[in-house]
């Protein structure tokens, strides 16, 4: 076990507490960068392209998941409506491309505009708490579904839109012809968003987010402008979700209102809970679960020799989620943290170290 002797405030908010941690993450980034060639070497040819596509899918889910994580995990506001903002990001990006912008500009601008819209929508939502906020956002997601159909001029209505072919740094980005290009686009976005998120967490704003999550009233007492903090959290979270949505739609090749229906936002929420609420790692772990579960299930049903069962995926997903909420509310990353503490303390870890405290609920109602 390593101890960090902190001698200044800068030590406390450093991105990496020590060289060991830094080298760990640097290795991870290097492996991720080399992944196309590693896959090429291990699987070769078309299979490598398939697995690279799967990895791209994981990274795209992770970008959207980071968006929801910022709002739900860090600021404590549950949203069931992020599919609406993913749709917004995606359709904005397509329309910006139509207007003749280069992809990178259209992509970033789509994220920014989605964030602004999210911040505007957050203003009326600020008064809502807990369940009311989740229902409000759920209604937003359903409204977005219908709005996509109504705004046919921009969105193509129920027929949807095809993702246009675009070029990035001179390379033509086609999912089938150029899986590496797509992988690097998703990886780059994921790294950029992660860095932004991580840096946000060590800024006063990031600590304000956490304070609002832990207790709005005490945050207010500490001089935090709760309304402003929540609006910013909502805006930033929607911006990330918009980027994730743009990537998801373009990666799928064609998208309409069904691509971003409200089940996607529920799936997103479940994903970050399985990964570990409140941890950046959690978004990535959850994304891996959500992206590989269908493959794993189809392999399992093949192995059992039975025909595919409709709805199996969603059912199993729900069951996994129930198991996590009951037995490991901190998610996969929380489990790893506990394991790590156990290993670090090895003979001295105690069984009740992570026991949940008994708590009782009180109502806010008068009658």
């Amino acid at each position, binding site marked *: 076990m390593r101890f960090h002797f902190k001698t200044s405030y800068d030590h406390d908010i450093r991105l990496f507490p020590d060289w060991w941690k830094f080298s760990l993450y640097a290795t991870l980034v290097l492996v991720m960068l080399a992944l196309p060639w590693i896959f090429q070497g291990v699987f070769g040819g078309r299979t490598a392209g398939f697995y690279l596509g799967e990895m791209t899918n994981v990274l795209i889910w992770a970008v959207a998941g980071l968006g929801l994580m910022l709002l739900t995990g860090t600021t404590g506001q549950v949203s069931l409506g992020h599919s609406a903002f993913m749709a917004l990001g995606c359709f904005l990006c397509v329309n910006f491309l139509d207007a003749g912008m280069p992809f990178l500009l259209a992509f970033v601008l789509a994220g920014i505009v989605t964030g602004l819209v999210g911040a505007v929508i957050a203003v009326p939502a600020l008064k809502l708490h807990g369940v009311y906020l989740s229902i409000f956002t759920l*209604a937003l997601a359903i409204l977005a579904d219908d709005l996509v159909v109504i705004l046919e001029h921009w969105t193509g209505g129920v027929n949807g839109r095809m993702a246009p072919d675009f070029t990035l740094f001179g390379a033509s980005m086609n999912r089938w012809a150029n899986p590496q290009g797509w992988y690097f686009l998703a990886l780059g976005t994921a790294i950029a968003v992660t860095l932004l998120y991580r840096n946000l967490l060590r800024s006063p704003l990031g600590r304000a987010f956490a304070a609002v999550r832990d207790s709005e009233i005490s945050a207010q007492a500490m001089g935090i402008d709760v309304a402003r903090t929540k609006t910013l959290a909502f805006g930033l979270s929607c911006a990330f979700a918009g980027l994730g949505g743009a990537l998801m739609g373009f990666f799928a090749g064609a998208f309409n209102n069904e691509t971003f229906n409200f089940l996607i936002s529920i799936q997103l929420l479940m994903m970050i809970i399985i990964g570990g609420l409140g941890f950046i790692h959690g978004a990535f772990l959850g994304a891996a679960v959500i992206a590989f579960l269908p493959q794993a299930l189809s392999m399992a049903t093949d192995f059992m020799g039975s025909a595919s069962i409709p*709805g199996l995926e969603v*059912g199993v997903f729900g069951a996994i*989620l129930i198991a996590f909420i009951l037995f490991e509310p901190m998610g996969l990353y929380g489990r790893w943290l506990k394991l790590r503490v156990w290993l670090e303390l090895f003979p001295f870890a105690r069984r009740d170290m992570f026991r949940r405290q008994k708590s009782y609920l009180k*109502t806010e*109602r008068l009658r």
Partner: protein
Amino acid sequence: MEVLQLLLSGLANGCVYGLVALGFVLIYKATEAVNFAQGDFMMLGAYVMIGLVNPQFMGMNFWLAVPVALLIMAALGYLLDLTVLRHMFGQSQTAVVILTIALGFVIRFAAGLIWGHEPQSLHSPLRLGDVRLGDVVLSLADIAVIVVTLLMTLALWQFFQRTKPGLAMQAASQNQMAAYYMGIPVKRVQGAVWALAGVVACVAGILYASKGTVDISSGFIGIKAFAAAVIGGFGSLPGALMGGLIVGVIEPFAARYLPAGYSQIAPYALLIIVLVFRPHGLFAQVRTKKV
């Protein structure tokens, strides 16, 4: 006449929403949790009834099957509380919300596995006739829905207002620890309320299945019932019915008078407007939180 016809059919639909919303409110009133799976409960209740009554399954007599179905759903509700939700005792609302969403997924999967994915309709004696009042046509099922819903709401309202178990349920939600001190078996009371919610869901399911067809995604009308419960203000039983009626009546009128595509937004738009201007519903019961 057309207006009256729309109004009456809207009321009948609204009563089903109101019944599902009643289930939300019951659970919210007694456990401070919101059951996002209530719509799926309703779907399950409908399927249990179909399984008992329809000739290709068990083929029981309809009136004999009603109490059996109610009992099955009550037992299911109680078991669900015993096995899953009791572990969440004292945890935050949002954790329970997510848990019940997941439960909804599992219920939908299980129902699809048992009863298949095709839409099915219940062989119900309520299907038989129409009632004519001048130019207005109402099916027997519609009338049954309205009558049963009104009776249910009245009974549950009085139950919470007057009887000892009803008051114990309210106390158990208002302050769990204080309720323990008063000698209320809080966990058992919560189990009872889940059973009761199962019964209400089953009634809603039977009526819904008598009006039309059921498939496994019928549970999504739970979302409209949410709109109903929120408009009425969570925690108020007559409010839930009111909200259900408002949503139910708005729908056919929007479908008739608004351009196509805009009509299905109406309930959600109303929900958002209500939440923006009255964040705790029309019949709010919350004041500023005290530390």
